[in-house]
């Protein structure tokens, strides 16, 4: 059994976000991190590896520096890593991205017992689309918003979260699951021996040449030009007018606030 875990390197949007005057993101000024939901997907895969000894493969599409992230995942416990990287793939939307990643997984090989794990969504685009779209391209059943995954033989039982509860879903391998974090989920740390050996583990780069003849790739539907969706405009929202800072933090302050709210018919 092999579990492919799809991961993405993203700018840390919880920190300082810098925007260029033309409305694009100033990526150079921002820290990059492993997308948080993807870390949880990796953890779920490593839990299954602990129990079954299965192979865990980290897969990402991105520019060459994404290697650093893959080495971290190898140090956490992944067995091997695949970087999908080519100029032709840059600027892909979710449709195009899912084509390329599914072609790469197909190229490496997906067995009857294998699974693909993704994070629910990435914090830069927040689309949650690439996982289900990979499943569709590969013709696999999908379960999204998974909080718990139990595997017995080829049967997989997943707790799939809804806004007002959850579903228990049974599915067979091969399948694709997108993982969410809950209150208790924490990804493990890299280990010292993991760090020492992360450069010795199998590491593969798949470029345009490797994937261009894969049947799942339609060459006119990848990259910035081929993507079905395009950015028409991007802009920053206007700042709201400055509010009032009340003086002090005592009883009088509270009374001033109450009087203002009363005047404005808020209370």
């Amino acid at each position, binding site marked *: 059994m092999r579990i492919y875990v799809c991961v993405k390197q993203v700018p840390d*949007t*919880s920190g300082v*976000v810098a*925007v260029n005057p033309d*409305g*694009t993101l100033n990526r150079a000024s921002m820290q990059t991190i492993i997308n948080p939901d993807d870390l949880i997907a990796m953890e779920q895969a490593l839990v299954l590896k602990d129990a079954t000894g299965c192979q865990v493969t980290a897969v990402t599409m991105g520019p060459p520096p994404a290697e650093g992230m893959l080495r971290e995942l190898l140090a956490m416990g992944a067995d091997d890593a695949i970087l999908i990287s080519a100029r032709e793939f840059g600027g892909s*939307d*979710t449709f195009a991205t899912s084509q390329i990643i599914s072609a790469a997984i197909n190229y490496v090989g997906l067995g009857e017992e294998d699974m693909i794990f993704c994070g629910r969504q990435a*914090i*830069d*685009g*927040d*689309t*949650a*689309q*690439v*996982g*289900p*779209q990979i499943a*569709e391209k590969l013709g696999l*059943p*999908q*379960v999204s*918003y998974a909080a718990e995954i139990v595997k017995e033989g080829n049967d997989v039982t997943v707790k799939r979260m*809804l*806004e*007002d*509860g*959850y*579903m*228990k879903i*049974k599915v067979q391998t091969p399948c694709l699951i997108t993982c969410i974090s809950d*209150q208790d989920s924490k990804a493990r740390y890299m280990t010292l021996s993991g760090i020492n050996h992360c450069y010795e583990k199998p590491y593969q780069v798949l470029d345009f040449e490797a994937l261009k003849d894969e049947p799942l790739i339609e060459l006119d539907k990848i990259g910035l030009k081929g*993507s*079905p*969706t*395009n950015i*028409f*405009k*991007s*802009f*920053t*929202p*206007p*700042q*709201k007018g400055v*509010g*009032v*800072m*009340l003086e002090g933090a005592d*009883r009088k*302050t*509270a009374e001033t*606030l*109450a*009087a203002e*709210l*009363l005047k404005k018919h*808020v*209370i």
Partner: protein
Amino acid sequence: MAFNSADIGAFKDIWVFCEQRNGVLMNTDFELISEGRKLADERGSQLVGILLGHNVEGLAKELGGYGADKVIVCDDPQLEVYTTDAYTKVICDAAMDLKPEVILLGASNIGRDLGPRCAARLNTGLTADCTHLDIDMDNYVNFLETSSTLDLSNTKFDMEDVNLKMTRPAFGGHLMATIICPRFRPCMSTVRPGVMKKAPFSQEMADKCVVEAYPVTLTADDLKTEVLDVVKEAKQIVDLIGADVIVSVGRGISKDIQKGIELAGQLADAFGGGVVGGSRVTIDSGWLSADHQVGQTGKTVHPKVYVALGISGAIQHKAGMQDSELIIAVNKDETAPIFEVADYGITGDLFKVVPLMIEALTAARASK
């Protein structure tokens, strides 16, 4: 005739996927039908709801009351509970046959499971979690004038453009992006719950709405997942979206978490009743359950009053609350970014200030 998503002239009508759970329509359905009505009028096309389930035909007319010209009902026992496989097949079969120009879905956990799968099968683009939609270019330019910092004086727009212009926050709400899908149809979009305004219900429109059954062809082979159980969580789910008053807590309550949450609840009561929300850290740390989360990864809210207690105001949080009608922030740090969006700010220790606010508000309300 084979389905070809690039033959864009063959597509017409605006569709809204109407989600039901246990035979009850979702609030998002009404929001999307209301928004879809606006788009259909801009395009001069029909607005069609597509409703899947079992014994759900009786729900269809109500959708007409919010603006649907027609509701297509796909009824089958295998559609009673949502499964990705069955719903994707039925919607895609119908879409390939009837060729809608636009499909809108609510960005619920189900809509965001179903939307991408359908878009991939239909060979078209999908834009996630939209907060604003336009077809008419005049309306779009007006929207940019009021909602962006762009200088439009030198920008030329093609006023005849009829692509659906789908605007959504990106990078935690720091940037807005308008996305189009110019070469393929249908244009698909999931729409964030709670953002689009629900139109008033019209009985006359409900009566006029055409309800049409559409045949469902599903075989056991189509279903690769089995729903063993659907569980509604016993705990009370916090209705952040419906609340008039939300008092949210953040990292600032860390020195006494229980007390901080209790004070937030009491402050909401002092406003005449409301609910307690939380920033991401309060959910990630397990202080509050996920249904309390306000922000880019939580809920987008615009209550009449939003109070932020001990919340610094990361972009991620502001994205979910900055459109509230009135914002009050209490924070020890006078440079906290939350003050940039607050109408009233108080620099101080929330554990000292909030009890005084509760007293003052209670007294003020009693004096009315």
